[in-house]
């Protein structure tokens, strides 16, 4: 079982590895990775599969709420924190 810090680091490294549009210094937990096109819609499938490897569990994409992929915080809360209400409040 990975710790929160390990998961956040893994997510951060995935974004930096898969995008040449941001540097490590500029990527924060609240950086808008979709809005700023750091990660494109075509990369979401890869990101979902990467998250599945961390959770070891398939993701029901149909049940995802808008904003789940907004930034590293929302991704962590959406897939690892297990608190839907908290996630919805942050994204509204």
């Amino acid at each position, binding site marked *: 079982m990975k710790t929160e810090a390990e998961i956040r680091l893994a997510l951060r490294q995935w974004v930096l590895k898969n995008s040449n549009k941001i540097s490590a210094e500029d990527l924060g937990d609240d950086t808008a990775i979709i809005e700023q096109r750091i990660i*494109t*819609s*075509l990369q*979401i499938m890869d990101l979902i599969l990467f998250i599945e*490897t961390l959770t070891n569990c*398939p*993701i*029901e*994409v149909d049940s995802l709420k808008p904003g789940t992929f907004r930034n590293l915080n929302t991704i962590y809360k959406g897939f690892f924190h297990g608190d839907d209400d908290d996630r919805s409040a942050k994204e509204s």
Partner: protein
Amino acid sequence: MMNDLETTAHKLCQASRKDYVNPYSDLEWPDTVNIHNWFMSPELISLYGTEHYDRLSEADRKKLSFYEAINFFSLNIHGEKSLIEGLAQRLYRRDVGPISSYLHHFLDEENKHMVYFGGFCARYAGKVYPDRKLSFPREYQSGEEDFLFFARVLVFEEIVDVYNVQMSLDERLVPLARQINLMHHRDEARHLVFGRKIVKELFEHYSPRWPGATLQAIREYLINYIMGAWKEYYNPDVYRDAGLVDPYRVREESFNHPRCRSHRQKITRACLRYLTENGILDKEPAL
């Protein structure tokens, strides 16, 4: 829109009316299927040529072929859902008006495809594999959104059609799987004629007005889209259902395997040639 495209659309309308299919009566559905048969040509199975495939027994390869077919039909359903959405948005739009009569056939035929793809998945697997793609709204240059929509459709259908043709002729496959592939190919052959025509004409019409950076971004997008379309063929859900251990590792290793790269390049060759010959891509990407 353009006269040449209208002429093509008119001819395709006549062909669609002549080759009208009833997906409810043209297929016979057995109550069950024995999954220890071939449902997908072995050479088209995503793991073919890798150590993961070589290790499987004949029975396990056939079982894998069943779930690969479910994945192939599922990704067709997801592709067709977004295609129908995009076609419906364009139907009777002022600048599309003259080809709307063909868009009706296109829509009708895509819906029928989902009837038999979905029918197979629901009857025999009890599910359609979920789609892992998402799209986000963005701004487009003039004509860019239409061009990318039809280019995505074309790429998707070009790949699928190579599979359809090969499997429709493969006597190792259960008859129902062969027939579904044949029926799909018959319609797709017309869609590809239309797709190649409209993508070329949209590109020739709009691309001279796009800034260099936009054209560059469009080319990058298309290459990423082609790669993305291929990634869907390597589905960890399939490997899990077929009983393979560590399906995510299997996916990663297979996707990067030299035989799989060469398979993707071979299947996509005609599509890439079309895109480069028409200046849409400036070079053929390595897949």
